[in-house]
């Protein structure tokens, strides 16, 4: 290879240039995949040793989490139920809000309104989670205590509302894209047949964009289950399965974040936190695979998909 100055010699053919570009992009892509794989291997290597101490069912279905006691208890069921509870409650809030906002933006709002509101909703997505967590802790928690007369405002409900704040932009933005990309002929045909605007939205536009909407919902939920800072600050952190909407909970990410910094390196506690991370990873992986599956299986192919 003669790598003289650019254009000085014509030894580098267009084909060689192609290959070089191809190769460098491949290298960059494989580096990031390699790093991700290494992180996963690391997670598993650091998590598995705990199962020499407790069996997998005892770990996942254990009621008590006392990692530093002697003898220690490593049961993460309270954390799993905490994670599922905040995800379920926040979805109940975020899905209707997110979808209705998306339908409004794509179908009802005037173009001017849309160009104003959509960036605003997407800006919400840029709010750092620590800011939302701080807001929940300092503003919302005392309000909840005053309004409902509950014992503590740091609870399942508060955390779910804060998580919903974060999931709504994700859901709105992806669902709006899906609804907006429904071909205009469909709407025109429906209206020409005498359907009202609402009938068109409910019976034509939404069914046509259902795969996109499902993806939006699942990614929104995945965001809630993996979110750390907000639940660490606002969920209260009691390692107990919640009995009511206003009970404090400790989702898995909060447990890991709170304890990892000071867990002795390669102690049972350390391994147990990594194993918690593995369980959390399985949950988020499930959500993402589901989203990919729906998006792939029911790919929106223009008018043909109806």
């Amino acid at each position: 290879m003669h790598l003289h100055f650019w254009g000085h010699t014509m030894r580098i053919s267009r084909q060689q240039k192609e290959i070089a570009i191809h190769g460098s992009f491949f290298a960059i892509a494989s580096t990031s995949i390699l790093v991700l794989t290494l992180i996963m291997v690391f997670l598993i290597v650091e998590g598995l040793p705990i199962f020499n101490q407790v069996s997998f069912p005892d770990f996942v279905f254990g009621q008590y989490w006392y990692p530093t006691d002697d003898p220690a208890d490593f049961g993460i069921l309270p954390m799993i139920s905490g994670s599922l509870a905040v995800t379920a409650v926040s979805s109940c809030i975020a899905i209707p809000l997110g979808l209705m906002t998306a339908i409004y933006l794509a179908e009802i709002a005037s173009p001017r309104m849309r160009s104003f509101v959509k960036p605003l909703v997407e800006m919400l997505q840029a709010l750092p989670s620590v800011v939302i967590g701080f807001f929940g802790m300092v503003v919302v928690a005392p309000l909840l205590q005053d309004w409902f007369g509950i014992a503590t405002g740091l609870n399942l409900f508060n955390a779910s509302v804060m998580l919903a704040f974060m999931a709504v932009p994700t859901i709105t933005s992806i669902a709006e894209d899906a609804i907006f990309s429904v071909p205009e002929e469909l709407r025109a045909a429906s209206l020409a047949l005498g359907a009202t605007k609402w009938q068109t939205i409910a019976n034509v536009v939404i069914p046509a964009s259902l795969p996109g909407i499902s993806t939006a919902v699942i990614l929104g939920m995945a965001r809630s289950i993996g979110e750390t800072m907000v639940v660490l600050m606002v969920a209260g952190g009691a390692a107990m399965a919640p009995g009511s909407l206003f009970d404090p909970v400790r989702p898995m990410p909060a447990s890991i974040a709170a304890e990892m910094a000071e867990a002795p390196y390669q102690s049972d506690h350390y391994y147990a936190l990594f194993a918690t991370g593995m369980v959390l990873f399985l949950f988020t992986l499930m959500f993402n695979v589901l989203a990919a599956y729906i998006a792939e299986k029911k790919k929106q192919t223009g008018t043909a998909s109806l």
Partner: protein
Amino acid sequence: MRPWSYILSALLVVSLAAPAMAANSVTVKGSTTVLPIMQRAVEAFIAETGTTVSVSGGGSSNGIKALLDKSTDVAMASRTMKGKEIKLAESKSIKPVEYIIALDAVIPIVNPANKITNLTSDQLKAIYEGKVTNWKEVGGDDGKIIVISRDTSSGTYETWHKIIMKKARVFPGALLQASSGAVLQAVAKNKNAIAYDGIGYINNTVKPLSVDGVTGSATTAKDKTYPVARTLQIYTTASPSPAAKQLVDFILSPKGQDIVEQAGFIRR
């Protein structure tokens, strides 16, 4: 090109991941309670002397064990050496030298609106075990007690767990806050809350309680009348390396003791 890019990217990752090898350094190991002091002190020490120091946790027992195995130069401990450990040291003909570097006092705190000013150790234990659940059971106004605890790996939790709980378990319904600052915030915002925090962190947004009638302060911690207090110490062998000796002297110096205070503890 393809196989090359594989190898190159693999090499890149490996070279990034390989731990830096340090020669001629001081190693420090032990109590996670002492760790925050040590980390701050070591940062300043490195800036001043350029000596490489590696600090790790693992708990007091592991630190002392490592000192006796000669796998660490300095051991950190939140308790003094046990008889068994002293015997083990004698059998290895090692003479550990103890330096008290700081005092740690943990103070129970409540919301300023709470009229309680004192609780006994037994009452505190019962509250944290979930046996006493209403403030009126300990002489306060009617209201469910919101128990706030620290994450189990923190040194503050360890002190509380050992002295107040006598190693009994904090009940699972206790709220968890992951830092001293978050504990203060949570107590300041909830009139029914109780928590505990290191003496250096307490400010006027919360109300400190006396324990068994004794107010926690630097003085009562030093004369041992305040029950929830203990000394923090480091150990070296009788003939430490010059660099290790230098580090110990640094922590005992006025500059080192300022760092002790910044980390939320009491000067020795």
